[in-house]
């Protein structure tokens, strides 16, 4: 089987990840609950993972790396904790439902939201951010890269806009963490929301948010923290403020091992490999009759994603055929990105997404391209 659904979750994980999870299942007490050896083993491992993530994302310190089960919960926490009724937020048509639904809920609660529109090619115009600005605009929430087209946001441009108007800037890095540099403090990003199980190669159930210097987020969840037990309110110190309840220590142990692996290989090498395969695949299928590819391939700065359609065929049927005839795993349908599908005119058809990871090979990219060629010839 050729696995080309790495934008959904990378597979396989480096062997050290599973080994770390297994060891943690045997060894870990509950981090922050007690000072015995087993609790400290868990606490040390989790702290190490915070340190590694702080370095990876350019966050000011490990105490501002807050864990969550996934980027969806991190985005919910950031959006609900930074904005409220009366606040205006700017976002884009590129967003995943993990951004859209918290924003729609904010709207239902009396907030205001506007979206920078994507054109029929999926492109956004950065001048539109300025046009959408209102007197009550408080922030921008954006994905770093579209999970549908792989197009990458010009973070510096959006950050400059936010800085110029005193706005908060929340960045969803679900498709870019581990692939592209983030450098949050240097770029002035208020909160970076990340998932552990995609480009970081950790287990599912890991993720979180890095909180920028001076950024105050109202906690989304409150509850047990292992500290300040007699206080009736959630502790204010990060990361405890955002981490009610027992952490996924076993998963975070795996994430820590994944970060060690990533540092050993290097983000640069992973990026070159993944983008190289995506480009190789694209070049072999882009000009085929009947194949329509979405997104901007003029630039090299992309997420390793190629989304396409074959004629008018239902993307779900194409993906099923890719798996049944060619043993290739892809993701069809809407990809939780309704606004961008509408912009591209693919609401009904969906699209077939091929996404590449470090454990894919050039041979696999070529086999996938050959399969697309075969299906295109059969149109």
């Amino acid at each position, binding site marked *: 089987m050729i696995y080309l659904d790495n934008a959904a979750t990378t597979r396989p994980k480096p062997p050290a990840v599973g080994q770390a999870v297994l060891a943690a299942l045997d060894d870990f007490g509950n*981090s*922050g*609950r*007690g*000072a015995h050896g087993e609790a*400290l083993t868990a*606490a*040390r491992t*989790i*702290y190490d993972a*915070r340190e590694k993530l702080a370095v990876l994302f350019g966050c000011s310190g*490990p*105490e501002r790396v807050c864990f969550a089960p996934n980027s969806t919960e991190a985005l919910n926490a950031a959006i609900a904790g930074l904005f409220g009724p009366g606040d205006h937020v700017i976002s884009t048509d590129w967003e995943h439902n993990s951004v859209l639904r918290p924003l729609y809920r904010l709207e239902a609660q009396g907030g205001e939201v506007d979206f920078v529109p994507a054109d029929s090619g999926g492109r956004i115009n950065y001048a539109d951010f300025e046009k959408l600005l209102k007197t009550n605009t408080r922030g921008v929430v954006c994905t770093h890269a579209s999970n549908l087209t792989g197009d990458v946001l010009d973070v510096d441009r959006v950050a400059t806009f936010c800085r110029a108007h005193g706005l908060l800037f929340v960045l969803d890095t679900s498709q870019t963490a581990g692939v592209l540099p983030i450098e949050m403090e240097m770029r002035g990003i208020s909160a970076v929301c990340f998932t552990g199980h995609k480009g970081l190669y950790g287990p599912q159930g890991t993720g979180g948010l890095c909180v920028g210097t001076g950024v105050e987020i109202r906690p989304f969840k409150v509850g047990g*923290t*292992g*500290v*300040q*037990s007699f206080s009736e309110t959630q*502790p204010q*110190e*990060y*990361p*405890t403020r955002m981490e009610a309840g027992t952490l996924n220590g076993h998963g975070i142990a795996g994430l820590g091992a994944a970060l060690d692996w990533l540092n050993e290989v290097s983000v640069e090498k992973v990026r070159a490999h993944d983008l190289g395969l995506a480009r190789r695949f694209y070049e072999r299928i882009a000009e085929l009759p009947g194949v329509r590819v979405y997104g901007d391939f003029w630039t090299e700065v992309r997420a390793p994603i190629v989304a396409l359609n074959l004629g008018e065929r239902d993307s779900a049927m194409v993906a099923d055929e890719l798996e049944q005839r060619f043993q290739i795993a892809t993701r069809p349908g809407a990809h939780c990105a309704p606004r961008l599908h509408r912009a591209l005119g693919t609401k009904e058809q969906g699209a077939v997404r091929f996404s590449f990871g470090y454990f894919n090979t050039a041979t696999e990219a070529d086999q996938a391209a050959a399969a697309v060629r075969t299906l295109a010839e059969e149109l």
Partner: protein
Amino acid sequence: MAETVCIVTFPATVGAMAMEKACREEDLPGRLIPVPRSVTAGCGMCWMAPADSREALEALVIRRKIHIDGIYDMIRPR
């Protein structure tokens, strides 16, 4: 018998972990223990070290910007 020890408390677990790591890296004495009930602290863990290391620990906390609640001398029954 009793001994005087130095206790460093923290508002959150992350501070305690930062302290342990910094002390190990700089070869300073001590270990994490549950916070004695006689000491007020946010975090359930505190750093306990010999009383004569207090000055070095204070310098470390400032130098490494470790977020602490306080530093105390405590009589600890043996």
